[in-house]
Structures are given as structure tokens and as C-alpha cells.
């Protein structure tokens, strides 16, 4: 325990001057409506570079970009830094596969009631995975909020006086209105955002059903936005209901149609968690050999997400998961880490 405020500047990973980002956007983003559809291998190859700072949409293990994570693992893109901002399955998989060397952590290393992640803990405890800084779930949200709004920081009263704050990139100043301390969280501009959505058009306009967690801000903050969509629909369908658009086309760099792209996790109002597959992963995760075998079987051993879906049980399983989400079938026993 101890205050490390003087090390703050070393903890400014992901921060950039908003003016530099304005210039980046001017050069790399466009208001032209371009057909951004592509394949997942191509999108990952183009957008995700060795050593990149990556962040995931959804939250916890809900609406996770699983298909995209698999492809990053297949392409063996390494030395990644992850914004562990409350995401669970996605970054645990990626880190368990060895693609991640650094993380900024709000919440990681566990999957709520399913328990702690052994491979991630082992990686952190052995030093293979370096934690760059600590923050909170709200803190990561607001770091992205600042980035999405052209601000270099976002103020909050959260975590004042804690080591969480001391081991973060935040700076505490005196609020000139109250005369009291206030924390300024540094903006965070990830290199890549992976976001899975319910439907998108070919230009990248996206609809998300249910909660959006941090995706709105993330999509506006990241430099390369890779959308996987359950379904790519006609532009006209999106255009006639602009109030349902949660991510506008101009922030998006690639759109890939990937049905059931967040299996074994929930896509709200579409399909539920696959507890059987979760159990398989949790059991596998108990040993390094199990982890290796899991990736051989389900990731390296599959060409694409359709092949993966066949391996996990194909249409029969998917159909069951849809029924569960629509409450037509009782929820099965929840998988938890054993031992």
C-alpha cells in the first residue's frame, strides 16, 4: 500500500492530445458512405497490429466479440495491450491464448459468479502479463467519454483517496468551484475497438438492442472500429429509424457479418449463454494443457466462425440458446469454475 502519484505520468497509456486525434480523424475517417463490408480475416489483418491497444464492446460476458477474438488468436497477433474495462470472456480468451502482454485494469481476472480466471491470474502472477494501471468501471467509461468528446480528461469524485486512484493515470486537482479535491481521469483512445451488434448496414450504421454499456463512447474514441454484426441489413431499414442507430457509420472502419458471433455468451434478446460450452472452457482453463487443447480444438482447429459453431453443436445448440433467451426453455445449470 502506498501512494504512487509521482508515477502517474507513466500510467498515461492510451492517452493522446485531443488535437492529435482530431488530425488523425481528419486523415483516417470520412463522411463518405463507403461499402465497408469485408471478411473477418481481412478486417483483423487490416485493423489489428502487433502491439496494439485493443478494447471490447459489450460488458462482462454479454454481447462479446468472440468471433473477432478467435480471429486475432488465429492470426497470432501478439504483444497486445487490453483495456480491461469490465469485459470478461473476450479478453480472458485472448490473454489465455498468449496474445496479450499488458493490461489497464478496471475489472479482469474473473467472471462474476463463475469465479476467478486461472490462466489470467497465472499470467499476472508470473509477470507474463503486466498490469499497467488500475482504474474503476466508471473510470474507464469516463476515460472513453472524454476521448469521444474531444476532451483530454473527465472529472469524477470516484476513488479519491484510494490506491486505485494512486495506481492510475488520474490527476487530483482542487476544484475551483468547491475548493475541494476532484479527480481528473485521462482520456483513453484505444487503437482498436471490437464491437458486436445486432444489425448494421454496409456503411457501418449499427443498431444494438438492449443496453449499450460503454459502446457508444468506445466507438467514438477508438482509432479503428471493427464491427461484427449478427446481420447486415439494407441501408434503408437503418435509415428509416435513425433513433435506433447507436453507432453512426462515420466512426466505423470495417463491418463483418458474423451470425452468433458472441457465442458462448448472451446476445440480449437473441440468444442466451451456452452453459455447456462455458463449463467446457472453465474445466479446460484449470490447466495449461487444457487451455492449449481448447484453443487447438475450437480456434486453431477451425477456419472461421461457422466451423466453430459446428464444433459447439451447430444449429441444434443455437436453437436451444435462442429458446432460452426467449424464455421458452428453462435456464440450465450455471457453470462455475471447479477447484
Amino acid at each position: 500500500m502506498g501512494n504512487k502519484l509521482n508515477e502517474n505520468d507513466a500510467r498515461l497509456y492510451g492517452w493522446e492530445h485531443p488535437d492529435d486525434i482530431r488530425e488523425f480523424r481528419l486523415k483516417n475517417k470520412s463522411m463518405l458512405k463507403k461499402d465497408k463490408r469485408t471478411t473477418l480475416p481481412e478486417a483483423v489483418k487490416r485493423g489489428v497490429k502487433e502491439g496494439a491497444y485493443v478494447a471490447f464492446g459489450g460488458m462482462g460476458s454479454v454481447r462479446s466479440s468472440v468471433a473477432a477474438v478467435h480471429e486475432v488468436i488465429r492470426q497470432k497477433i501478439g504483444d497486445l495491450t487490453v483495456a480491461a474495462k469490465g469485459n470478461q470472456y473476450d479478453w480472458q480468451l485472448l490473454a489465455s491464448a498468449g496474445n496479450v502482454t499488458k493490461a489497464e485494469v478496471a475489472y479482469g481476472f474473473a467472471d462474476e459468479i463463475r469465479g476467478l480466471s486461472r490462466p489470467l491470474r497465472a499470467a499476472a502472477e508470473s509477470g507474463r502479463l503486466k498490469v499497467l494501471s488500475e482504474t474503476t468501471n466508471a473510470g474507464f467509461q469516463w476515460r472513453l467519454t472524454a476521448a469521444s468528446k474531444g476532451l483530454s480528461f473527465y472529472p469524477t469524485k470516484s476513488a479519491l483517496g484510494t490506491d486505485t486512484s494512486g495506481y492510475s493515470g488520474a490527476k487530483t486537482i482542487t476544484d475551483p468551484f468547491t475548493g475541494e479535491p476532484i479527480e481528473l481521469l485521462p482520456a483513453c483512445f484505444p487503437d482498436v475497438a471490437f464491437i458486436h451488434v445486432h444489425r448494421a448496414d454496409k456503411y457501418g450504421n449499427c443498431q444494438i438492442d438492449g443496453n449499450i454499456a460503454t459502446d457508444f463512447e468506445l466507438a467514438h474514441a477508438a482509432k479503428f472500429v471493427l464491427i461484427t454484426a449478427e446481420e447486415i441489413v439494407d441501408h434503408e431499414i437503418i435509415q428509416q429509424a435513425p433513433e435506433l442507430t447507436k453507432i453512426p457509420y462515420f466512426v466505423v472502419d470495417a463491418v463483418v457479418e458474423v451470425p452468433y458471433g458472441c457465442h458462448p455468451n448472451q446476445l440480449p434478446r437473441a440468444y442466451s449463454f451456452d452453459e455447456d460450452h462455458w463449463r467446457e472452457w472453465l474445466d479446460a482453463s484449470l490447466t495449461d494443457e487444457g487451455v492449449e487443447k481448447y484453443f487447438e480444438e475450437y480456434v486453431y482447429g477451425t477456419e472461421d466462425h461457422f466451423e466453430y459453431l459446428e464444433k459447439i453443436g451447430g444449429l441444434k445448440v443455437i436453437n436451444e440458446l435462442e429458446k432460452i433467451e426467449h424464455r421458452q426453455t428453462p435456464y440450465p445449470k450455471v457453470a462455475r469454475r471447479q477447484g
Partner: protein
Amino acid sequence: MPTQVEKMIVAASRLLPKDTAVYVGTGMPLLASALALNTHAPDLLLVYEGGGVGGKPAGRLPIQVSESLTYDDGVIVGSMDYVMSLAQAGWIQYGFLGGAQIDKYGNLNTTVIGDWDKPKIRLPGSGGGADIASFCDRNIILMQQDKRKFVEELDFLTSPGYLTGKGAREEAGLPRNSGPYRVITQLGVYGFDEETKEMTLLQLFEGVTLEDVQEHSSFPIRISDDWTYVAAPEEDELATLRGLDPDGVVLG
């Protein structure tokens, strides 16, 4: 006979007033809140970190704070920004917390055992914990009590309790009148002394002794002059509780 976990959840549930909002995580907090919702507090507003406000879990318990069950038939489907802002603005008076370590001022560690740079055990990190601990007026901490968990000094101060004692939260800039309210363990219910902000035993579960309390803590625990026993769970509380978690996700 109620289990320890059931007794803890019932005690937590009773602390929730009927006209308030509560920030819930999955597990015991959710079950305690759902119990209150289905007994004395039908308007209790459950708020989830994923953005769900007011979802009333039915049939089963959400296993993720971002899943659809957290807002189906609820009040509003927001974002993390929204629910965290609600808390910072004071709309969510109650919150639930847990931890691997707690000190006498109710500060919590959920980040690391050992040195941060070379962790012996890496824990999940703050998550929304430090946010809830900072923003909510009355936080309820649910955890098992033993000497490794009730410590003199935390390995890492993840979420703020009363920091170094009375006045320290205000001095740090945290919202006025916020902080930990109760700690509930398998042994009893603790509050924080108004003058010193030190953890103080208020209630014991039946069968537990004052000696048990001390033996399960590395720091001395103050005992309230008028401590009592926690009233045992009512039959209908237990029945409702068990009905809310038919698969034993939390209750085992």
C-alpha cells in the same frame, strides 16, 4: 434451518428501505435485493452496472450485470455512463460491496494480495467497487470473516471506506455523508462508530459469541453497548429467498 449464507442475505435484505435505489452486483447482493423487492420493498429500484435500471429478475437470477434480465420490464435501459452518473449524483443511496480484505475503517481490497508489482494473488480489481464505495450514501459490505480478511493493513486500498477515520472521506473529496454503512459476515452485523468511524459490532447471529468475533479479526473490533442478536429469518422470508434462486446459483 437457514444456512449462514441465507442468514446473511436475509439480514442484508432487511436493511434496504422501500423507497430507495440500490446498486447491485451478481451473487449475494442481487439475491438480497431481489428478496427485499419480493417482501417489504416492492418499489426498490435495482440498478446494474451494465446500464439496466429497475429490471425485476423473475424465474432466475441474472448471472451478469449486463444481461437482458437486468432491464427487461424495467424502468430505463441506459449505459454505464448513465448508471454511474446516477450514483455520483446521489440517486442511488445503497450499494453492495465485498472484498478479499477489509480494515477497521471499512476500506476494501479487491485488487491484489502481496505486492502490486509482483502479486502473490491477482484479484479482479476495482470493477465498479470503488465507484459504489465512493458514491453511495450507505454501503453494505458482505463478506466472510477471518483473520486473513479482517486485517490491520490492506495490501491495496481498492475501494474507500472511511480511509483513515472521521473526516478523511470529506478531506479526500468524496461526497458528503457517504461511506460504508454495515458489514455483514457469517458472525454478525457491524456498523461504524460515529466518532471514530471504526468498525463496531451491532448484532450477532444466534450461536455466535463476542469471542468468536474477535478471534476472526486481526484488528480489535469495538462492541456496541447495546448489541443484540439478529432476528432469525422468518419462514416466508426463507421460502421467498429459496424461490428466487431455484437453481442454487448463490445459495448452493
